[in-house]
C-alpha cells in the first residue's frame, strides 16, 4: 500500500516546482498539473482496489519516525480510500475540464487547484486535530483564492464574504482544538478518551460549529450561495464536491467526541438545511444560484445521514451515506459543468441545451439522479435511509427530508421541463466544446453505471427488474429505425414477455393473471394504435416499453423494494411519455409532483410495514403480514394519488389531455390500474389479518365521491380527452369504493370493472385519438356529424359508452349490477344511492360525447374528413369484440373472478352469470336485464316505426339566420352544454380542490421568498448569523 503521505508530497512538490517549470513552458506545467491529479487518482484507485481485494482493516501511517500520539498520523481504511478516490477522480476530471481556462490564466490557478485537492486529501486522512486545522486552512485559503479565477465584482465580493465567514470558523476551530488538548491532553483523535461534559462541552462544540459553518448549514451559508453564483463553473464544482466532502468527512471523524443530544441537534440542522435550501430554491431564477441552493441542501442531507445512521451496520451505512455522497458528487459535478458550457444565467435560457442532444440527455440524467430516482445511487440511499430513520422513530427528520426532497423535485423538474420543451431560436444556438461534452457524458454514464452496479451487486435484483431500464437503453440504440418496425418489435417482445410472466405466475395467484391481462394484454392491444406513427418517433418506444415492463415488474415484485423500484421506473417512463405532448409542460410537472408525493407516502408506508418473509410475490406475501394502521393509510393514499382519487386528482385531467393521443389511452386504461393494483395489495393484507373497517369505510366514501365528482366534472368539459379523463376518475372511484367494501361481491365487481374499464376506456381514447388525428381539435363543439365520415369510430364509441353506462345487454351492465348488489349486500345503502346518482350523471357526459362529436350538424371544415386510420380501428375493435364476448358469456369472466375473491372471503355467495345467490335470497340479474332491455327496446321500436316520417336533410344544408357570429361554434348547443346543471350546483361548482393546491404552491413559494430574505448579501450580516447561530444552537442543546 502506497503511503498516503505521497499524496501530500506529490502535490506539494508540484506546487513548489510549478513556478519554475512555468518559466520554461506552459505546456510543461499543464502536463505536470494533470500528472499530479492523475497520480492522486491512480494511487487512491490502487488503495480502493487493495481494500476490496483483502480486508486490511484500517492502516495507520505516522510521520517523523515517531508513533501516533507523539507525531501526526494518517489513517487509511476502506472508507477513506473510497472517499479519496471519489474526490480525486472528480478533481482529475474537473482539472481536465478547466484545462483551457488554466492555460489562459496565471499559473497560480493551477497550483491553487492542486492545493484544494491536497487540502481535502489531508483533511480526510489526518487523525490529528490541529493538523486538520492546518489542512482546513490550506483548503479554505486555496479555495478562496481560486474563486477569483473568474474576476468580477461579484466573485471578489463573494470571496471576501467567504473569507470573513471562514475566518470566524477557523477561530472557533482553533480554540476548540486547543481546549480539547487542554482537557484531554491529546490532539490525536485516537487518543482522546474523555467525555466532554459540562463546561468541557464547549471544546468539541466549537470544533463542530466551525465545521457546520464550513459545511454551509442553514442559516450560516449566505456567502456560499454568492460564491456558487459568481465563480467559474469548474471552481463551483470543486467547492461543492471536493471541499464540502472533505469537511463532511472531518465532521464524521469528530462525531465520537460529540454528546448525543448535540448530535441530534446537528442532525436536525442538516435536515433543516435540506428543507430550507430547497424551499428557497423554489423562487430562484438564476441557474447557478439554484445549483448552489441544491448543493447546500445536499450537504445538509449528507450531514443528517452521517449522524442518523450512526448505529447502523457499516455496509448499510456506507450504502446510505455513500449513496447520497456519490449521487451528489456526480449529479452536482455534472450540472455545474453543464452550467459552464451553457453560459446562461437564467433558468429559462437553458433551452439552448437542446442544440446538443447528448448534453440534454446528461442533463436529464443528472436531474433524475438528484431527485432520487432509480437506478441512481440516491434512490437506494433514500430508501434505506427512510427505513432506518423509521426504525429509530425519527419521524421529524423524515418529514423534513421528504418535504425538502419534494421541493427539490419541484424546482428541478420545472427546470428540466422548461429546458426540454422551451422553444429556442436558431441564433441562440451555441457550439459546445466537444471535449467538455464528452467529459460530461462520461460522468453521466459513470453515475448510471454506479447505480446499476448497486442494483445488481448489492441488492442482486432479478433480470426482470432491470428489464425496464435495459429496454430503454436497447431501444435507444435502435432508435434510428422507423416507428413501425420498432412498434412491431415491441409488440413481439411484449408478447414473449407476457408469455414468460404467465409461466412464472400461473400457479401463484389468479389475481396476478387478471392484472397481467389488464397491464400486458391491454398494453399490447393499445400498442397497435401506436403503429400509426409514420415518423421515427425518437425515444417513444423506449419509454413505452419501459413503462410496460415496469407494470409487469409490479405484478411479480416480491419485496417492497422491488415494488417501489418498479413503481418509480414506471413513474419516470410515464412522466417522460406525458412530457412528449405538445403543450404538456404544466401537465407533466403536476404529474411528477403528485407522483413523487405519492411515492414518498408509499416509502414511509413501506417503512412502517413489517418485513416480508419468503420469496413469493407481494400479493401472496402480504397475506401473511399485518400492516399497521399508519402503513395502510400512507400506502393507500400513495396509491390513490396515482389513481387520481378526489382531492389529489388535479394532475389527472391535465396529463390525460396533454399527452400524445395514443399515450392517453395507456395512462387512463392501464396506468391508473397500477394504482388500483397497489390499493388492492394493501387491502389484501387487511382482509386477512385485521380488518380495519373504519378506515376502509371512509375510503369507500372517498371512492363514492370520486365517482360522483368525476362524473360531474366530466359533464362540464369541452375537451373530449378531458371528458374521458374525468370519466376515468369517476370509474376509478367506483373501483376504489368496491375494493373498500372488503367483501366478496365487492371485490368481484371491482375486478370486473377494472378489466371492463381497461377495455372500454382504451377503445374510447383510441377512437378519440382517431377523431383528433383527422380533425386536429379536441374541443367537442368544434366537431359534429362525424357519423357519416367516421362510422367505424362511431360504432366503437357507441358500444363503449353503452358498456360504460351499464345499459344492458353489454358487460357494463354486469359491472354496475354486481356493484349495486354488493353495496346492498354490504349494507352501504347511502353509498349505493350516491353511486346510482353518479351513474345518472355519467349519462350526461356520455350523451355529450357521442352527440356532439358524431351526431348533429357536420362542420364545414370537416367535409373532407376520412375514417380514422386502420391502426386506430384495429385495437378498438379488438376491445369491442372482447366486450361483446364477455357480455354474451358473462360466466366466462364472473366465475374466475368469483374464485379469485373467494381466496380472501369465506363467502356463501354463489354467482352464476348475473344471478347472485346468497343465504338471504337471490338477486336475479337476468330478469333485471330483460326488464331494462325492454325499457330501451320499446322506444327503439317506436323510433323505427316513425323513422320514415322524418325529413332527411343533407348535412351541410343549413341556413344561418342573419349574420354569421364571430365564433359560431360557441353558439351551438354543444358548447357549454350543461351550463344549467352547473348553475344548479351553485357554489359546489367551483374548482375548490384546484384552488387549494394552487394556493399551497403559492404559499410555498411565498415562504421560500420570505426566508431567503435573510441572505441580505451583506457579508457582515452573514457574520452576525454565524455568531447568533453559535449562541442559539448552544443554548438549544444545553
Amino acid at each position, binding site marked *: 500500500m502506497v*503511503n498516503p*503521505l*505521497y499524496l*501530500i*508530497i506529490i502535490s*506539494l*512538490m508540484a*506546487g*513548489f*516546482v510549478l*513556478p*519554475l517549470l512555468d*518559466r520554461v513552458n506552459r505546456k510543461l506545467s499543464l502536463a505536470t498539473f494533470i500528472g499530479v491529479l492523475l497520480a492522486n487518482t491512480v494511487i487512491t484507485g490502487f488503495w480502493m482496489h487493495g481494500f476490496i481485494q483483502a480486508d486490511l482493516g484500517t492502516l495507520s501511517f*505516522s*510521520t*517523523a*519516525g*515517531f508513533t501516533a*500520539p*507523539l*507525531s*501526526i498520523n494518517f489513517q487509511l481504511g476502506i472508507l477513506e480510500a473510497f472517499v479519496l478516490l471519489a474526490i480525486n477522480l472528480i478533481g482529475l476530471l474537473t482539472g481536465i475540464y478547466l484545462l483551457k481556462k488554466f492555460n489562459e490564466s*496565471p499559473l*497560480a*490557478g493551477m*497550483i*491553487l487547484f492542486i*492545493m484544494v485537492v491536497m487540502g481535502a486529501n*489531508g483533511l480526510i486522512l*489526518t487523525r*490529528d486535530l*490541529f*493538523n486538520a486545522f*492546518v*489542512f482546513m*486552512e*490550506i483548503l479554505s*485559503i*486555496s479555495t*478562496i*483564492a481560486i474563486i*477569483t479565477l473568474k474576476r468580477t465584482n461579484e466573485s471578489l465580493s463573494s470571496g471576501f464574504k467567504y473569507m470573513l465567514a471562514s475566518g470566524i470558523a477557523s477561530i472557533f476551530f482553533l480554540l476548540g482544538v486547543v*481546549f480539547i*488538548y487542554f482537557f484531554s*491532553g*491529546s*490532539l490525536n483523535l485516537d487518543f482522546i478518551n474523555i467525555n466532554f461534559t*459540562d*463546561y468541557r462541552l*464547549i471544546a468539541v462544540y466549537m470544533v463542530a460549529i466551525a465545521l457546520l459553518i464550513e459545511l454551509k448549514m442553514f442559516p450560516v451559508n449566505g456567502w456560499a450561495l454568492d460564491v456558487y453564483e459568481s465563480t467559474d463553473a469548474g471552481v463551483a464544482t470543486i467547492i461543492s464536491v471536493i471541499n464540502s466532502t472533505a469537511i463532511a468527512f472531518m465532521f464524521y471523524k469528530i462525531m465520537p467526541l460529540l454528546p448525543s443530544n448535540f448530535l441530534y441537534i446537528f442532525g436536525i440542522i442538516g435536515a433543516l438545511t435540506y428543507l430550507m435550501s430547497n424551499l428557497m430554491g423554489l423562487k430562484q431564477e438564476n441557474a447557478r444560484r439554484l445549483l448552489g441552493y441544491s448543493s447546500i441542501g445536499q450537504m445538509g442531507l449528507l450531514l443528517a445521514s452521517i449522524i442518523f445512521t450512526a448505529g447502523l451496520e457499516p455496509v448499510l451505512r456506507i450504502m446510505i451515506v455513500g449513496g447520497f455522497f456519490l449521487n451528489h458528487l456526480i449529479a452536482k459535478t455534472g450540472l455545474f459543468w453543464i452550467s459552464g458550457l451553457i453560459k446562461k444565467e437564467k433558468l429559462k435560457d437553458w433551452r439552448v441545451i437542446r442544440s446538443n442532444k447528448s448534453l440534454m440527455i446528461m442533463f436529464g440524467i443528472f436531474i433524475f439522479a438528484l431527485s432520487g430516482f432509480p437506478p441512481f445511487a440516491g434512490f437506494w440511499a433514500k430508501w434505506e435511509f427512510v427505513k432506518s430513520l423509521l426504525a429509530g422513530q425519527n419521524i421529524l427528520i423524515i418529514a423534513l427530508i421528504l418535504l425538502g426532497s419534494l421541493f427539490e423535485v419541484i424546482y428541478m423538474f420545472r427546470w428540466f421541463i422548461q429546458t426540454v420543451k422551451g422553444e429556442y431560436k436558431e441564433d441562440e444556438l451555441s457550439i459546445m466544446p466537444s471535449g467538455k461534452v464528452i467529459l460530461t457524458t462520461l460522468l453521466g454514464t459513470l453515475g448510471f453505471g454506479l447505480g446499476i452496479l448497486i442494483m445488481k451487486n448489492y441488492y442482486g435484483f432479478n433480470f426482470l427488474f432491470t428489464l425496464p431500464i435495459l429496454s430503454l437503453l436497447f431501444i435507444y440504440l435502435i432508435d434510428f429505425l422507423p416507428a413501425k418496425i420498432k412498434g412491431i418489435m415491441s409488440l413481439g417482445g411484449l408478447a414473449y414477455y407476457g408469455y414468460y410472466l404467465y409461466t412464472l405466475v400461473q400457479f401463484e395467484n389468479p389475481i396476478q393473471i387478471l392484472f397481467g391481462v389488464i397491464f400486458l394484454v391491454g398494453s399490447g392491444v393499445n400498442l397497435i394504435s401506436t403503429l400509426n406513427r409514420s415518423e421515427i418517433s425518437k425515444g417513444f418506444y423506449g419509454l413505452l416499453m419501459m413503462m410496460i415492463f415496469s407494470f409487469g415488474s409490479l405484478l411479480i415484485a416480491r419485496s417492497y423494494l422491488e415494488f417501489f423500484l418498479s413503481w418509480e421506473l414506471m413513474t419516470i417512463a410515464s412522466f417522460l411519455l406525458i412530457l412528449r405532448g405538445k403543450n404538456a409542460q404544466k401537465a407533466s410537472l403536476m404529474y411528477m409532483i403528485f407522483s413523487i408525493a405519492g411515492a414518498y407516502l408509499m416509502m414511509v408506508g413501506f417503512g412502517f410495514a413489517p418485513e416480508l418473509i419468503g420469496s413469493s410475490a407481494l400479493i401472496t406475501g402480504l397475506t401473511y403480514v399485518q400492516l399497521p394502521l399508519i402503513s395502510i393509510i400512507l400506502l393507500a393514499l400513495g396509491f390513490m394519488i396515482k389513481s387520481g382519487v378526489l382531492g389529489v386528482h388535479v394532475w389527472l385531467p391535465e396529463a390525460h389531455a396533454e399527452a400524445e393521443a395514443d399515450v392517453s389511452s395507456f395512462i387512463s386504461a392501464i396506468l391508473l390500474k397500477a394504482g388500483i393494483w397497489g390499493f388492492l395489495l394493501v387491502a389484501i393484507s387487511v382482509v386477512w389479518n385485521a380488518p380495519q373497517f373504519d378506515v376502509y369505510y371512509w375510503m369507500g366514501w372517498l371512492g363514492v365521491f370520486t365517482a360522483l365528482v368525476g362524473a360531474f366534472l366530466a359533464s362540464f368539459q369541452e375537451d373530449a380527452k378531458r371528458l374521458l379523463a374525468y370519466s376515468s376518475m369517476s370509474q376509478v372511484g367506483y373501483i376504489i369504493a368496491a375494493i373498500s367494501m372488503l367483501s366478496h361481491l365487492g371485490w368481484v365487481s371491482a375486478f370486473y370493472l377494472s378489466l371492463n374499464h381497461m377495455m372500454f376506456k382504451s377503445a374510447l381514447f383510441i377512437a378519440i385519438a382517431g377523431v383528433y388525428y383527422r380533425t386536429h381539435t379536441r374541443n367537442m363543439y368544434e366537431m359534429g356529424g362525424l357519423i357519416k365520415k367516421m362510422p367505424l369510430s362511431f360504432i366503437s364509441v357507441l358500444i363503449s359508452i353503452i358498456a360504460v353506462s351499464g345499459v344492458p345487454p353489454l358487460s357494463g351492465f354486469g359491472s354496475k349490477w354486481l356493484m349495486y348488489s354488493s353495496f346492498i349486500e354490504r349494507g352501504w345503502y347511502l353509498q349505493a344511492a350516491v353511486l346510482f346518482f353518479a351513474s345518472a350523471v355519467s349519462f350526461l357526459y356520455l350523451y355529450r360525447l357521442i352527440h356532439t362529436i358524431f351526431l348533429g350538424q357536420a362542420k364545414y371544415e370537416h367535409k373532407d374528413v376520412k375514417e380514422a386510420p386502420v391502426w386506430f380501428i384495429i385495437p378498438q375493435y379488438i376491445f369491442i369484440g372482447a366486450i361483446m364476448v364477455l357480455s354474451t358469456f358473462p360466466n366466462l369472466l364472473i366465475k374466475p373472478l368469483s374464485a379469485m375473491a373467494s381466496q380472501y372471503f369465506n363467502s356463501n355467495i354463489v354467482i352464476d352469470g348475473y344471478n347472485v345467490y346468497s343465504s338471504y335470497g337471490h338477486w336475479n340479474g337476468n330478469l333485471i336485464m330483460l326488464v331494462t332491455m325492454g325499457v330501451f327496446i320499446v322506444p327503439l321500436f317506436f323510433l323505427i316505426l316513425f323513422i320514415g316520417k322524418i325529413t332527411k336533410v343533407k348535412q351541410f344544408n343549413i341556413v344561418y339566420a342573419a349574420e354569421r357570429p364571430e365564433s359560431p361554434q360557441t353558439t351551438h348547443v354543444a358548447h357549454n352544454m350543461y351550463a344549467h346543471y352547473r348553475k344548479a350546483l351553485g357554489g359546489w361548482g367551483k374548482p375548490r380542490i384546484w384552488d387549494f393546491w394552487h394556493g399551497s404552491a403559492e404559499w410555498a413559494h411565498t415562504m421560500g421568498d420570505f426566508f431567503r430574505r435573510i441572505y441580505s448579501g451583506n457579508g457582515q*450580516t452573514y457574520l*452576525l448569523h454565524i*455568531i*447568533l447561530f*453559535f*449562541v*442559539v444552537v*448552544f*443554548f438549544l442543546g444545553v
Partner: protein
Amino acid sequence: MINKLLIIIGIIGMLLILLPILVNFQSPTNLSALAEEYVRGSVNDLKSPNVVTSVVVTYRGLDTLGEVTVLFLATLGVGFLLENKKNKSTQRTVSENIRTTSSFLVSLIMVLGIYIFTHGHLSPGGGFQGGVVIASGFLLLILSDLDFKISHAILRFVESISGLVYVLIGLIGLVLTIGFLNPAILPLGKYGDLFSAGAIPLIYSLIGLKVGSELTNIIATMGSDRSSESVVKEER
C-alpha cells in the same frame, strides 16, 4: 437598531458560553503526558535543547509543512489577485544618507535573520522568526532605495527550491523508512552544538529562506504600484 441589539445579544451570548471555562479554570500543575514525552524526547532522541523547535520541526513537522504551504498559498493568492502589470515610480525622494545607512543596516539584519533560523534548535526563534527578519530587511531596502527592484524571479526561485528541498528532506526519511520529515537522516551530533539535532537546523534554515522569500514577495507585491491605465482598461 435591531442589528445593534442582535450584535450585543450575540456577543453576550458568546460571553455566557465561554464563561464556564473561566469559572472552572484551574492552572495545571503538571505537564500532560504528551508534553512530558516531548520534553524528554527532545533531549534524548533529537538532541535539541529547544523543545518548541523539536515539536514544530519534527514531531509536528507535517503541521509546519502545511503552515509553510498556507503562507505559500497566501503569496500565490496575493499575486493572483493583484496581478501587477508594471511598476510606476512615485515622486518621493530619499536622501543619500538614509540609503547608505539602510544598506549597512540591511546586511546586519540579514545576518541576524540567518542567525535566528540556524540557531532555532538552540535558542528561541527559528525559521519563521528568521524569515520575517530577512523580509523586514528587504522591506527596509524597498522603503529606502527606490531604484531597488526585487527580482520576483529570484524570489520565486528561492521560494520554490527551498520548498522543494524541504519536501525532499522529508521524502528521504520516507524512502529510508524512518519516517517522513524525520531529522535523523543526518547525524544527531552533540547536544547543544550548532550542527546537531539532525536535520532540524537544515529544515529550519530552509523554512527561514522560504518564509523570508514568501513574505518579501507579499510585501513587494502589495507595495508595488498598479498602473492607473490598467484600472481604466478593466472598468471598460
